[in-house]
């Protein structure tokens, strides 16, 4: 059984990648990959008082979601969404755990409200006025695969467009030593059930036992294996190449996800 959708917009941000148009050039092999710390833009969607309060994970999710929605030319308020992240806001989590280890145990109410795994989804829906259903997943290293399956299943079953956002940021020490994620990485797709004039490519996915496709560039491969959301890179590379093909993405220990990519003319 397979599930399918058209991709009408892509958002992309990570170490050495500032947006999808530039990332596409690198992934297609037309420009070299130059690793550099990810630069997360100030979320202009949010009111000025909130811009300072939100952490890197919210900045990242809002940046890639905005890019994908803008590229697709759709109003974010109308879109259902699937958010998937392996760990939420690591810096906020660290501050809470640090405060709870002290005598006073005073934690800030804002920190607590921002500690929920669905914080980015909450800020996104408030900023854009999006009231359709949104869900927020975690599947540790399989979080991108889990998000992709959920999103494609929704589009296939409900026949409505949807925004998928997969994103991860780092923990500070001491948690970083236990869960070493080197930097921020996010990807977003606007998915539609039917082809539109703006459709970039069609993807069709199924669970597969086949072994995964690593990337040939060792620096990109290192990125793929070190940040859960970057498990999407083989799919993004295939889309960047602009040619039909099949890629196998890493999912759970017992199964992977095979994705058939067919560019729209």
């Amino acid at each position, binding site marked *: 059984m397979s599930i399918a959708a058209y991709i009408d917009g892509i958002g992309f941000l990570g170490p050495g990648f500032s947006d999808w148009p530039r990332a596409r050039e690198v992934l297609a092999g037309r420009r070299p990959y130059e690793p550099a710390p990810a630069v997360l833009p100030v979320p202009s969607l949010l009111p000025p008082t909130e811009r300072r309060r939100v952490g890197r994970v919210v900045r990242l999710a809002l940046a890639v979601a905005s890019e994908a929605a803008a590229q697709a030319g759709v109003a974010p308020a109308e879109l259902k969404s699937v958010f998937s992240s392996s760990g939420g806001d690591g810096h906020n989590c660290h501050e809470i755990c640090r405060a709870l280890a002290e005598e006073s145990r005073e934690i800030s109410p804002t920190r607590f409200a921002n500690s*929920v795994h669905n914080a980015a989804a909450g800020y996104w829906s408030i900023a854009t006025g999006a009231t359709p259903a949104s869900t927020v997943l975690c599947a540790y290293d399989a979080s991108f695969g889990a998000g992709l399956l959920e999103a494609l299943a929704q589009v296939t079953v409900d026949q409505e467009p949807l925004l998928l956002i997969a994103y991860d940021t780092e923990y500070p020490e001491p948690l970083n030593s236990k869960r070493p994620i080197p930097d921020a990485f996010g990807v977003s797709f606007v998915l539609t059930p039917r082809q539109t004039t703006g459709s970039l490519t069609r993807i069709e996915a199924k669970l597969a036992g086949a072994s995964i496709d690593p990337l040939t560039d060792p620096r990109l491969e290192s990125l793929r294996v070190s940040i859960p959301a970057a498990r999407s890179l083989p799919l993004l590379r295939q889309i960047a190449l602009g040619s039909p093909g099949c890629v196998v993405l890493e999912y759970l220990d017992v199964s992977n996800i095979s994705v058939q990519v067919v560019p729209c003319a």
Partner: protein
Amino acid sequence: MNPLILTSFTATSCIGRGLAQTLDSLLAERSGLSLCKFETVDLDTRVGEVEGVDDQRLPAHLARFDCRNNRLAELAIRQDEFDRSVAEAADRWGRRRLGVFLGTSTAGILQTEVAYRRRDPGSGALPADFHYAGTHNSFSVADYLRRRLGLEGPAAVVSCACASSAKVFAAARRMMEAGLIDAALVGGVDSLCLTTLYGFHSLQLCSRAPCRPFDVARDGISIGEAAAFALLERAPEEPGRDDVLVLGIGESNDAYHMSAPHPEGHGARRAMQAALSDAGLEPAAIDYINLHGTGTPSNDRSESQAVTSVFGPTTPCSSTKGATGHTLGAAGALEAVISALALRNGIIPGGVPTANVDPTLTALYLKKNRKAPLQRVLSNSFGFGGTNCSLILGRNG
């Protein structure tokens, strides 16, 4: 939607281990809330603590998952032969055709909170025996149970604060309708930890007394812990009399505020309407509403307005959080199981320990149990970030 059947279900909370004890407590209108003596917490509040969680052992080969949250999960799947029902379903469908979708808000973060007290004084490093993936990470509870029960289908945790384990029913249903799975283990597990106890305290949302949903003197929540599970399959053509079905699911976003509901309950209203539409039912078809009913002044006011705007003032409602505490990421699944018990036993559980219902709240809140031949029950779950989910459960006939 195409109805699903709860082939098996169970719940463990402060009002009981398994269905029989839970039903006894509901019939006796008993609350399980008690003064907080949890861990080293020094807050003047009540909690719904499950006794004996830390006596529960995990299988040796899964020791890296050892934490209060997974102990509670293990304790709960042993009730009502739930683990055996899952094993039988895996035999029936194949282990790759069984999905695992669980809700949690904090998973095993207690493990990290305690590890931070044990940081190396020199380097600041966490202790070597701390396992992030098996305890702290939100996925840990789903990963534990899929390994413990030998399931190999799609798996994910839904972490949408206090709506998490209602939304897992929607995730499982979509995977089933897309043909990726034939059955799913769904549910929610959330356990007491310092983050939520001190966090809700910082927001001044915790009551000192046992929480009193919809009471004129309500002044906050009581935090509880629970694990509740259901095995979902496609409903047969002709369900039996005692079969409990999922008939409709509705989800929405408030798009209003991170930690406060829309004052008129617009998001809640849309979730309930979406569930009714999904089930193809009119509001009058609902016999009882198990409210989100947390016991904070604003939550209950908002929900009462939303309920009345959809159902009018005559549909019986109650919140069981005064009995179980607010079990956060487990609340949706726990209250789905309580709704299933209500359907099977023809009883509307009274919303204890509420004494004087706030006269400005227009929904019909029942303080005492009422016998009623229930056919369809709606259960509400709402969370931080403005995320809402309503489930409609029903029986044949």
